[in-house]
Every structure is written in C-alpha cells, then in structure tokens.
C-alpha cells in the first residue's frame, strides 16, 4: 500500500476525484459516466499533445512550437480538403502526420546538428510556423462550409458508443505507453533526461534521440492539427494561439519534471485531464468568467508545489536508528 502511494499518478487521480466531487456539489450531473466520457473526449486533443510534449521534456528539452505546428498542419489539411474533397480522411491524416513530422524534424535537426538549445530553436519556429500559416493561406480562413462532411464527421463518428476522437486518444496513449516502457528508444529517452553525459558513455546517440523525439512531437502536433481543425471547424492563423503553454502546464501538473528524466504516460494523461476538467467545469459551475484565469493559474502553482513535495529527495540515511524509525 505504501509503495502504491509512492506513485504520483495515484495522488493525481485522487486529486481529480476530489475535483470531480467538488464540482458535483455545484453541478450534480458532472460525475455521470456520460458526462465524464464527454469530458474525456473534450480533453483528447490536449492529452495527445501533452504526450508529445512529454517525450521532449523527458530529454531535458522543450517544444514551444507545437501549437504553431498544429496551426500550420491544420491549415494545410483544411486547404487540401477544401480543394480536393475527394481525398479520403485516413490519407489526410497521414498527410497531417507527415507535415507535422517535417516541422518537428526541422526543430530536431537544429537541436541535433547545430546544438542550439531547444527552447531557442522552438521559440524561433513558434513564430515562423505560425507566420508560414499566414503565408500559405494568404490570411484567409477555411470555414466549415468549405470542409467536406467526412472531414468534420470522421472524429465524431461513434464506434462502440465512443467517438473516434476518444479512440484515437486511447490509441495514442497505448502507443506511448508501449514506447516508454517497452522499447529501447523509450528507455534512452529517460536515460538522456536522467544523465546526458552518462548516456553518451552508455552508447546512446543523444543528439539523434533528441531528433527523433522532436519528430515524434512534430507528428503529434500534426495529428492534433487535423483533429483540432475538424473539431472546431475553422482553420485560421489564430488557431491554438498560446496553447503551447497549456500543453506544458498539463505536463507539469502531471508530474513531468521540467529538468528531464522524470514523468510517465499516466502522469501526462492525468495532467491533461485535470486541466480539461477545470476548463470544462468552470463554465458550468457559474464562476464569473473573469475569475477563470486566476483559478487555473493557482491550480498550476498548487500542482507544482505538491509535485515538488513528492519529488523532494529522500537523502540516503546514515543513522541506523533513523532508518528503522
């Protein structure tokens, strides 16, 4: 039991349960399974993005360009769909993944080959990718009317009573879980975060792994681009502006250490859910809209403080007496 409580995820889960409980006192329907399913669906995109960001943060890097990538890729697929509605959606998703991959690879290449700190690279590409969206679209929107019914309907179709969007999120979660716990790449990602020098000595190609990690976050950004656009049915330059901070906040709340090496798939998912529940619940429990920003800010600070408590290193104990106590 004690070992069980050691896991941050358990605490986060408990916090989420308490949060749902609190919300239910003011809005009784909130804890209904149907509503919770919907909350999950609403949070899917954030969860997917948080997972992509997680692998980057684990290697002591950061990807600030994810939201811009999302915006760019979303615009590309929306324009494609508007121009050639015949392209089947699965193919369009592949296109989104590829476009995202290219943008991620650009980040990764600069980090890998030129050794520029990732925060600098992605601070640059953050504005470049969004600017590029303006350039390819000429500033024009792609609106619901120009999108094909399939384009919009794909993620909304229900399969076993659950929308495809949720299924995609579940699939991505499963893939990341496999990646992080069962593959050499996943372990290398952790190792790089824990001790980069030692990783070099252990034969891990740190630069290339970072490149791969940015490719992953890029692909995730691309996937989220399609999902976002088809969900909110407007593609414009303003899409997901500033959302990169939400993604990072989800990771942070999920206990992913910004210093790298610590964090889990479960944490990222729960962190995203936590934020998702807050943004979902605030409108329904009649809190003045002007309070929302301060509340989510406080939630982030609180989460960090609590996480830090959990993370505080138990120094090695020399005294025997204290050990048994």
């Amino acid at each position: 039991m004690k070992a069980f409580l050691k896991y941050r995820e358990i605490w986060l889960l408990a916090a989420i349960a308490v949060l749902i409980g609190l919300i239910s006192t003011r809005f009784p329907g909130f804890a209904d399974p149907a509503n919770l399913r919907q909350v999950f669906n609403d949070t899917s995109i954030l969860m997917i993005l948080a997972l992509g960001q997680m692998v980057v943060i684990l290697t002591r890097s950061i990807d600030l360009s994810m939201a811009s990538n999302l915006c760019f890729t979303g615009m590309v697929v929306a324009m494609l769909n508007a121009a050639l509605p015949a392209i089947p959606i699965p193919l369009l998703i592949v296109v989104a993944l590829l476009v995202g991959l290219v943008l991620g690879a650009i980040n990764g290449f600069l980090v890998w080959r030129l050794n520029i700190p990732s925060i600098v690279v992605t601070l640059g590409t953050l504005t470049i990718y969004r600017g590029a969206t303006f350039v390819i679209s000429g500033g024009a929107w792609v609106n619901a009317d120009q999108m094909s019914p399939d384009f919009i309907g794909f993620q909304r179709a229900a399969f076993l009573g659950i929308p495809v969007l949720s299924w995609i999120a579940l699939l991505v979660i499963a893939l990341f879980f496999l990646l992080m716990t069962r593959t050499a790449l996943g372990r290398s990602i952790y190792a790089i975060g824990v001790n980069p020098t030692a990783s070099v000595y252990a034969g891990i190609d740190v630069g290339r792994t970072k490149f791969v990690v940015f490719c992953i976050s890029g692909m995730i950004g691309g996937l989220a681009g399609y999902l976002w656009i088809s969900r909110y049915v407007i593609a414009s330059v303003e899409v997901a502006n500033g959302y990169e901070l939400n993604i990072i906040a989800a990771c942070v709340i999920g206990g992913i250490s910004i210093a790298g090496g610590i964090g889990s798939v479960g944490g990222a998912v729960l962190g995203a859910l936590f934020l998702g529940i807050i943004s979902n619940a605030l409108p329904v429990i009649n809190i003045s809209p002007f309070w929302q920003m301060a509340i989510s800010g406080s939630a982030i600070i609180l989460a960090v403080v609590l996480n830090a408590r959990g993370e505080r290193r138990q120094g090695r104990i020399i005294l025997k007496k204290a050990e048994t106590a």
Partner: protein
Amino acid sequence: MTDTPAPRHIPDRLDKPLSSAIFSWEALLVVVAIAIFAINSFASPYFLDPWSLSDLTFNFTEKALIAFAMALLIISGEIDLSVAAIIALASTMMGMAVQAGAGTPVLVAIGILVGLGCGAFNGLLVTRLGLPSIVVTIGTMSLFRGIAFIILGDQAYKGYPASFAFFGQGYVWWVVSFELVLFAVAAIIYWFVLHRTSFGRRVFAIGNNSIAAQFSGVRVDRIKFILFCLTGLMSGIASVLITSRLGSTRPSIAQGYELEAITMVVLGGVSILGGAGSILGVVLAAFIMGLVTFGLGLLNVPGIVMSIFIGLLLIIVIALPILWRRLRGGR
C-alpha cells in the same frame, strides 16, 4: 621532501588572435544591425527621418527595459514568463489609484511597487520552495493577469492625469523621448552591475554552477530572489511607461511581451542555459528587433510575416557562429 622546481609562471591572459574579437557575438550583432539599417534606408524613403527614427525606438524600449533584468535572471539560470502579466496587474492597480484620485507620483510609485511585489512573489516561490522558475512563472502568469481580470472585468481605466502622459509620450529633447533616455540609463546601470560588480560576477557563477557557488559562499537564494525582484521592478517601470503611452488600462495590456523580451535576450547572445551573456548584446538585439519591425512596417509587411523574420533572425544569428566554428574547425 620534494625537490621543488621554480613554479611555472601562468600568464593572466593569452593574446587573443584578432579573428576571435572580430567574430565575437557583439560584433556579429553590430554587423547585422548595420546591415538592416542600410537595407531599411534603401527600401523606404521615409526611414531616414529623425521623427521616424524616434518613433522606431518606441517599438523596443519597454521590452528592452524588461530584457535587461531578464538577461541577468537568465544568466543566473532562471527565467520569468510572468513579466507581461505583471505589467497588466501593475497597470490595473495604477488604474484603481486613478479612480481613487491619486496623482502622478503616487501612480508611479504604485506601478513600481506592484511590479516589485509580483517579482518578490515569484522569487519566494522559486527560492523558498525550490520550484523550477519556468513552471512557477507559467502559473503566476495566469494568476497575475487573472487578478487584473477579476478587478477590471470588461471595464477599462482611463482618465490618467495629463502629467502622467510624459513617461510614455514625452520628449526630453527634440526627438529624444523620455523612454529612450530611460533605456540608455538602464542599459548603463545594468551593464555596470553585471560586468563590473561582484554581484554580477556572482550571477555568472550561479548560472554556471549554483552548487559550487553556494559552497563558495555565494548566497544563491538571496541573489536569485533579488533578480526576480529586479525583473518585477523593471516590469513595473515598463508598466508605468506603457500605461502612460496608452493612456488607459485593460487587463489584456502587453499581451505576449514575455516572449518578445526573452527573444531579445537570447538574440543578444545570452545563453538560455545560463552562465553567459552581455548587456551590450541585449542592447544591440533590442535595436535589431526595433529596426526589423519598423523597417518592415514601413513596407507595410503584415505583422505576422514580420514575426517570421524575427524567428529566422533568432535561429540564423545563433546558428551562424556555430556553423562558422565548425567550418573553421574542419569538423
């Protein structure tokens, strides 16, 4: 015992080859700045006009004031993403004071003190609780601006006293604005503090190895706390300037300034990983960013396309020395 030979003499410095001075970061920035200036003068007939050049400085002075303090903070290995939110909160407080009938000196004091207070709050969270600053300030960024929203809601404060307008709109002499003078003074002070005082030296030491600095008797937490306060203070000053320039306050004021200030710092050659950087670099970076945005503005290039240039500039200017070294090193 050992037969000790005469100790080897170690020179203070090696004579650096001229090339290393020529290819210093600041030199690179000077070249870039001159190039952009030249391009601007060619591209637009309106550029070389004293009033244009004066207007140009308003594009960067406020952000640069924050960038100076941010540079020190980043050199020490921390970061503050909440600066723009501090501006919003400080401005809101000044607005409240105006409503209550406060005069200009009181307003300035409130702006600065609120900034200082917010900085101290960040500093306490980071140093006392040992939290990573990037995360703390993502939180306080929402918190500070959130408080501004709670206070102001959908309202705006205006009716600032006429004398208050001087800070953001006034000119000290001919085309030389008060903001520009403040920028120059702050640049000199920060240059001196960072490069000529033991405080500055300790900032560098902390950024390179905070544990070793602590063991060496540097009061790491105190210095970091001071740096957060300084950043808050500069945000407070920037808030006075911007509120005066706009003559009004809304909670959405100064949105996105944090990333621009950080871009300025990084473009100025301050290592985002901490431990290295110079104020001269930041000053040059401020001018470069002002020149680029104003120059492109004169050509009526859409703002969003401008941001592509800034992004490219950031990456290219940082990549250039690396590529250069690699070419010369043959590897």
